[in-house]
């Protein structure tokens, strides 16, 4: 059964600006990339027609409170793990691409454990300071893009190719 899984690219992103960056990334992508089957793992609940299948995951952290964060993270950890088991049993993921934020961390670790390459975009909102998700993903991702050159000093091995 595992042999006949369809090949897909896994797109992982959070709501708001992260979803906007993902939409722009796909919109301007060359046909060769658009023609691949794309699936999504996201905390956005509304279905996006860009993807053949969309999996839901809760957010990795609470934006307004430190105390809630621990509970939220534990919930996120198990949720992301369960969804990744589901995804990897159904599809052969050839690459994971993420525009952040923290929702990408657990899927990225699992992808790397299975030898799947991970591409990460530090958010366009990061200009003078790196994000927590970015600092973690810098260590996990095979290819790490920054969208402002000013971040190069925090991420010496990152790539800058303009802004989404």
């Amino acid at each position, binding site marked *: 059964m595992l042999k006949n899984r369809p090949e897909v*690219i896994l797109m992982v992103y959070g709501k*708001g*600006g992260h979803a906007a960056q993902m939409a722009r*990334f796909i919109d301007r992508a060359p046909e060769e990339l658009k023609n691949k089957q794309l699936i999504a793992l996201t905390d956005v609940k509304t279905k996006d027609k860009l993807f053949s299948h969309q999996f839901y995951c809760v957010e990795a952290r609470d*934006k307004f409170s430190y105390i809630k964060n621990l509970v939220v993270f534990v919930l996120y950890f198990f949720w992301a793990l369960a969804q990744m088991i589901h995804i990897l049993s159904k599809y052969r993921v050839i690459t994971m691409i993420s525009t952040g934020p923290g929702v990408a961390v657990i899927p990225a670790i699992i992808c790397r454990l299975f030898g799947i390459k991970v591409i990460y975009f530090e958010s366009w*909102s990061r200009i003078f*300071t790196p994000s927590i998700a970015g600092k973690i993903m810098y260590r996990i991702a095979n*290819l790490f893009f920054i969208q402002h050159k000013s971040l190069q000093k925090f991420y010496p091995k990152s790539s800058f*190719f303009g802004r*989404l």
Partner: protein
Amino acid sequence: MKIFVTVGHTHYDALFKAVDEQLSPEKYQVINQISDGTYFPENHKYFKYTPQLQDEINNADLVITHAGAGSVFYLLEIAKPLLIVPNFDRIDNHQKDIADFVTQNNYASVCYDLEQLEKHVLASVNHSFTQYEKNNFCGYDKILDIINNA
């Protein structure tokens, strides 16, 4: 003056309170997109979200926005008269980076003090700003290399 206030997907009650208290309905026609906020404006129209966001933006003379990157970059790209009010209720520095970036490059007006909101509204329409020029992402080949060698 027609003003549209938008906060994307994060709540920002303090901003809507300041708008409601400082921008009188006689002088300003304001429409507020309050997201899941719990302050409900009394002097102006409001809604949580709209599928017609573009129309609201086009109809406004000025857009007041939180410093969310999605909203800010989009509005700078279409060269909309803009006032940015960073949301410091949030625990990360996310909005400060964008606000400082816009201030340093003189792309738009930024209000760091909600008590001075009306003054900044007037400055946003009266001052001249530097046109934002975007450097489009061109790294797709590097990504295709990885995909095709997977």
